[in-house]
């Protein structure tokens, strides 16, 4: 995995874990990679990996089995879907509109493009 230079790595690993849960790579009650695996495979400080995992524990997406490792919490996928839907406006729509304005695209033109996106995607 290549990390972007500017964002804290633990946030990037947390994102990757969330993506993995969302797409089903790590099913609920399935084990996720250990801190050591992250440190060795990605050549990162274990404290960084630990921070990412702890973040997901706080969010209720992972749970710890003592002496065994970290597992995906039941309901984690649903939880992620809901929070993604909630932040969709802020994450995508705001930026989309800002860029459309910068480029001088009208409201109607943008709406037509979104329509087209749905059609092409079907």
């Amino acid at each position, binding site marked *: 995995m290549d990390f972007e*230079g*500017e964002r*804290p*790595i*633990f946030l990037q690993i947390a994102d990757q874990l969330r993506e993995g849960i969302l797409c089903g790579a790590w099913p609920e009650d399935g084990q996720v990679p250990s801190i050591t695996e992250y*440190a*060795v495979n990605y*050549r990162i*400080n*274990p404290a960084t990996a630990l921070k990412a995992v702890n973040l997901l524990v706080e969010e209720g997406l992972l749970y710890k089995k003592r002496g065994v490792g970290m597992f995906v919490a039941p309901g984690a996928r649903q939880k992620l879907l809901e929070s993604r839907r909630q932040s969709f406006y802020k994450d995508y729509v705001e930026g989309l509109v800002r860029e459309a304005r910068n480029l001088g695209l009208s409201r109607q033109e943008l709406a037509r493009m979104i329509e087209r996106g749905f059609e092409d995607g079907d």
Partner: protein
Amino acid sequence: MAIEFEGVCRSFGHTRALENISLRLEENTIYGLLGSNGAGKSTLLNILGGRLLPGRGRVTVDGEPAGSDKAQARVFIVGEANLFPEDMKVKKAFRAARVFLPGFEAEKALELAKEFGLDTRKRVKNLSTGYGSIFRLILGLCCGADYVAFDEPVLGLDARHRDLFYRLLMEGYAARPHTIILSTHLIAEAANLLEEAVILHRGHLVQQAPTESLRGAYCSVSGPARLMEEYLKDKRVVSQSAVGGLRTACVENDGAPLPPGLERSPLDLQEYFIHLMEEKDKEEVG
């Protein structure tokens, strides 16, 4: 348990290599010792390893004076120096290492030699530059000391061997937590391994901070000179430069929206380091 530098100074003739350095290196932490050539990194490590005496101040390892037998048993510095008779064979050197490194893992050293493709039947003096470095790196990776410092560890290593070194370093750290000090100017490739950065500049300690807090904490903002002038009025500027009418400045990343016409890009550790050093160089001149 820690390494402590208190008010350490060291000169060589008229050159002041270290100026009043005070810092604390905790146990089981990975530090990056960063600085340009001549910043004092090697002097600092040589004092820690007991090969040099500080002119003033004191250095202790878990409370024991650096250079004392007790401190020497806890610290291992991987540098240029060869610790073995030159015509000794690599294999024999690994077996002999226990004499001065009680925790040395000779079996592991032989395995690592295989991974690196180091011929252990060769004499130490006959190793190429690259394999000479690899030989010393293996000593560091297997030394079993509580505090291990690597002085420019990957110089002369090809990309594959550098990557292998970083992997083995993390494997070793996971299996046996200890303090690792990586002195390097190849910041970009080591940045992710480091928990904390210690930045030296011309013998001064410029900054000691968690690397995560430095990533993206600063950004470069650029735009037309007249807009930049207005924008930078109330900002603390780390460094700035101009190309024609375009001005670029390194400032703290406050995340606030920028005035139209200006662009921001966050800096990684290496970029931040470069800006910081440029600024420090200007201060010296000015």
